[in-house]
């Protein structure tokens, strides 16, 4: 037979378990809006039953009497497979975002279509030559031409400088992220610390849910920067490969190794490295702009034979320069005041290869920028979709928590009622029995 107080203990276990479940629900509600939080769930299991060896008076067979409930674990609800998908998408998103930002800046550098872009300046340059052709003897027209040409060359230089800056900014951002106190170093150091804390907790038989959430969140962020892969070392600690090298390794004394040279960056860092390289988009645009400048210089100088109109040494967009003054502008081959054949020939370059090369370049910049915006939108929506599925599994639903709250509260009330019943029974036994005839 069981003790007379057995039922009290069963009720108490019920009370404690329901109370803890309410605490967990409270924790979930409190973190309903916390980024990276995975909802937690109390795993309720019946406690070990009480063995009554000869329960039946009739046949003497034994029985197992339930002894209540216990919370065996606080489970973190999360789908590791969705994490993998999410991180792969984050890497694409990081890559696309870095490219979009950079290409957007490059596109803005050209300032097309507009009144201040190279196209408009070229058009004014040809206009100025036509004006000189109409009035070759007029010093005013020649000096207007020289001023217009100087504005054109300074616009070339400005656009070239801005494209260089765009590439430099990508390099600077890469350096900042990978530098000694950059994001990668900070995250690696925090991940190494989390690895230790999680390993210790798991060793003691605990499940460090909130630390694991934090670690998952850091790996999410890291995956935007470069290709990340995670291996569990068997004790819930993670070895993390980052851009082709091992970044976090619990078996090393520091727990992480940084700085290192990434072999296969991918993600944002890969995109930044690519953008900063001489074959990256900004510097490719710059060298194409150099070709436009060189074409302009060679075509105008070939016709302006008396003295080079543009400095022949400056054949890049950064070095193009006007070499003539209003007095040395050549209007005609004969040198007569009204001779305008040279000016006519140069004005006839309007709409020629220089304009066409430049227009093709702007169209290319526009196409690539547009493609990067689309790629980013796609990466964003894929990432959102996976995140949504992940949220569907791990996120907190207030409706659900409210239902749980009611459930556990009712459970608590019922357990308390059982306890009261037990108390009443004991009261009958202790205070009301043995009083016959008193």
């Amino acid at each position, binding site marked *: 037979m069981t003790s007379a107080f057995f039922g009290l203990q069963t009720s108490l276990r019920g009370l404690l378990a329901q109370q803890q479940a309410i605490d967990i629900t409270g924790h979930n509600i409190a973190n309903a809006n916390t980024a990276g939080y995975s909802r937690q769930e109390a795993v309720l299991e019946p406690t070990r039953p009480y063995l009554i060896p000869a329960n039946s008076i009739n046949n003497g067979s034994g029985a197992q009497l339930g002894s209540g409930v216990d919370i065996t674990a606080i489970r973190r609800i999360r789908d590791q497979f969705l994490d993998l998908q999410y991180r792969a998408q984050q890497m694409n998103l990081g890559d696309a975002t870095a490219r979009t930002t950079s290409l957007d800046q490059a596109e803005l550098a050209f300032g*097309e279509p507009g009144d201040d872009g190279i*196209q408009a300046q070229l*058009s004014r340059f040809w206009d100025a030559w*036509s004006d000189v052709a109409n009035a070759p003897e007029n010093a005013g027209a020649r000096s207007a031409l020289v001023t217009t040409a100087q504005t054109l060359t300074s616009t070339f230089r400005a656009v070239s400088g801005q494209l260089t800056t765009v590439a430099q900014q990508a390099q600077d951002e890469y350096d900042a992220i990978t530098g000694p106190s950059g994001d990668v170093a900070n995250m690696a150091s925090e991940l190494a610390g989390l690895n230790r804390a999680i390993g210790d907790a798991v060793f003691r038989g605990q499940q460090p849910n909130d630390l694991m959430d934090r670690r998952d969140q850091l790996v999410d962020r890291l995956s935007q920067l470069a290709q990340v892969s995670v291996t569990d070392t068997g004790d819930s600690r993670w070895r993390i490969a980052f851009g082709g090298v091992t970044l976090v390794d619990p078996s090393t004394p520091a727990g992480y190794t940084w700085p290192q040279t990434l072999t296969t960056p991918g993600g944002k860092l890969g995109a930044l490295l690519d953008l900063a390289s001489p074959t990256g988009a900004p510097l490719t645009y710059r060298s194409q702009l150099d070709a436009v400048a060189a074409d302009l210089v060679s075509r105008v100088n070939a016709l302006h034979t008396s003295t080079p109109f543009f400095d022949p040494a400056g054949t890049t967009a950064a070095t193009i320069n006007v070499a003539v003054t209003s007095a040395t502008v050549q209007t005609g081959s004969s040198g007569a005041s009204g001779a305008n054949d040279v000016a006519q020939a140069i004005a006839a370059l309007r709409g020629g290869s220089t304009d066409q090369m430049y227009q093709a370049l702007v169209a290319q910049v526009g196409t690539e*920028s547009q493609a990067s915006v689309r790629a980013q939108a796609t990466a964003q929506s894929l990432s959102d979709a996976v995140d949504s599925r992940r949220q*569907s599994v791990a996120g907190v639903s207030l409706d659900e928590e*409210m239902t749980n709250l009611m459930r556990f509260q009712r459970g608590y009330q019922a357990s308390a009622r059982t306890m009261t019943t037990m108390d009443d029974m004991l009261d009958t036994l202790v205070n009301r029995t043995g009083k016959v005839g008193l």
Partner: protein
Amino acid sequence: MSMRITTLMSSSAMLRDLNDGMDRLTRLQDELSSGKQITRPSDDPYGASRAMSLRGELGGLDQYQRNVDDGTGWLNTSDTALGQVSNALQRVRELLVQGGSDTAGASARNAMADEIDQLTESVKQEADVQYGGRYVFSGTATNTQPYQLGGSDRYQGDAGTVTRAIGPQVEIPVNVDLHQLLGDGTGATDGKLLDTLRGISAHLRGGTPADADALRTTDLQSLDANLDTLDGIRADVGARTNRLAFAASRLGGLQTNATQLLSNTEDADMAQTITQYTTQQAAYNAALRSGANIVQSSLLDFLH
């Protein structure tokens, strides 16, 4: 089993939708306020490059139009001057016919010679006419006075051709080689206008029978030949003026076309954009309203 929807999911999805809606609204607003559907190359790379090329073409057409105007002014100036020369020569011819008759006395012939000298100077003056500060009959030596008044009859200009570009690879000469009409005066004995006029004046003053004979025969023939040349030159100027007028109207048509194409390429279609804007605004408002309802309500609202 249906997908589990969490609180954060519905609010972040709503936020994303609101952002998208706002983004579309902002783009349409940009189009409406700027009147352009292409404000940067990535809006429509092909359209942008087409717009740039059309804009360049339009700039060229404007410039050709200005060139035509300048050329027309140059030719009009030339034509007026040639008209004056023609009038002067008609008067010379009258005087020549009078002076060639035997009835004219010495003093009358001298007076005629004086008038012819004056007319000769006025012809040279017309040859020195300027357009925009440039001598139109000096060839390309536009800063050099072609004939010096009261001095030598020698032509000071050159034989260069002044041209204006009125289209891609189309150049039209706008100056007239007046030297072929006027020549270099007495010393040159080239039979040109100034030589002839100086000869007539000398023959009138000479008074010998040979002079009178020359006045009636060679001088008259020579003057008529020069008048024919002048008429030819004036016809040529008129033809070129007509050609410029035709070019101007053609350029005007091309300008209208290019402007139209440019507008079609880069200008926003207002009716369409406003309709889209209104639609987007309605969608955005609906998203806001439903969002406000979704985010607020949960089971919490119904528990007491």
